[in-house]
């Protein structure tokens, strides 16, 4: 299985940040867009078209799944669709995070960020 995961790495920034956004719970499309914008301090803004293109690819790759959760019709639009990480998606996210952490360790060892 780890070979399958390794083949997916490195993830594109869009997929990585979308997986990161879903790591703490299921979200609908706009929720993912908001979480990515917040978690990247606005440096990454995913637009609606790219978002659903990525959602389609991630569903096909088995990284995320559509959940059965629906909002209370009185509180929100019940037509919304929610997405969550699959076990495989979480493992891929962990592997990518480890890869980035390793790169960060090298960055720190070489004092690349000194003075920034």
């Amino acid at each position, binding site marked *: 299985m780890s070979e399958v995961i390794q083949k997916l790495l490195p993830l594109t920034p869009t997929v990585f940040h979308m997986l990161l956004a879903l790591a703490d719970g299921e979200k609908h499309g706009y929720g993912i867009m908001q979480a990515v914008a917040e978690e990247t301090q606005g440096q990454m803004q995913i*637009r609606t078209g790219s978002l659903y293109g990525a959602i*389609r690819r991630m569903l096909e790759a088995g990284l995320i799944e559509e959940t059965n959760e629906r909002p209370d019709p009185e509180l929100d639009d019940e*037509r919304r669709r929610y997405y969550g990480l699959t076990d495989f998606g979480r493992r891929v996210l962990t592997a990518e995070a480890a890869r980035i952490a390793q790169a960060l360790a090298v960055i720190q060892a070489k004092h690349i960020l000194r003075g920034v």
Partner: protein
Amino acid sequence: MRGEFPVAERLYGVLLSLYPKEFRAAYGQAMRLTFRDACRAAYARNGAGGLLALWLPTLLDLFKSALEERARQGEIMLSKTRLIALAGPLTVGVGVLWVTASLGDLAFQTGLAQDEALLSLITLPFLFSFVPLLFALIGTRLRFHQAAGGLGRLGLAVSLAGCAGLIVSVPASLLLGGAAPEAAQGLWLNYAAVVCVLSIRIGYSLFGVDALRYRLLPRWNLLPLLVGATVVLSLPFEWFGVPALLPLPGVTPFLHFAVTGAGWVFLGIALMDPRPGSQPAAAL
């Protein structure tokens, strides 16, 4: 203010038809809801300006992702290489359409042809030219995205947005115009078209500056700037109290179409040369 944007949502719904049917069936409704949420948030943050600012990147993203989805489903065999290769011939084609329109316009203005139907015939190639221009600009952007500086990249994005805006401004003006007072309905199309045409030319000028700076094209690096700058020929000089450039009425619009068209023809020929420009070290 209301949290509903029916016109924007309807327009977005119309634009979703650019996606393949299967994709639309799967995600169309969810995309519409997501766009509605984005409209509400943009309006809450920055009012009407926020809504307008949301539209430009949304449009660009929509065209890009719709093309990707259609290409993925095999409806369009558009690879990056193919789009880059098509940029030259398409630009030549656009130039030919503009030169044709200019000759028709000259015939009409000088009285050689007086049929009103001819005027419609002249405007048709002009209007249709923006569809191939859109693909030509996408190919140009793909080719020079790495080599151009920030100004060139911005210029091509602005041109692309203007061109896309022009293609959708007709349905947009119908939808928006329907909401406007009757007297102002005809103006929507004009305002939208003028803004979009200016965006295309300003974008070409910005790209032209980088083409000159970094010698992006294999030859004739002045052409993008020329294509952008010819827009001055379309300006109504009398508005600024300046006499028209040429004494004959109707000659300035002819020159505008003809020179721009010729510029596009030669630019297309330059783009057909697959060699990279003579990149100086400064461009790296």
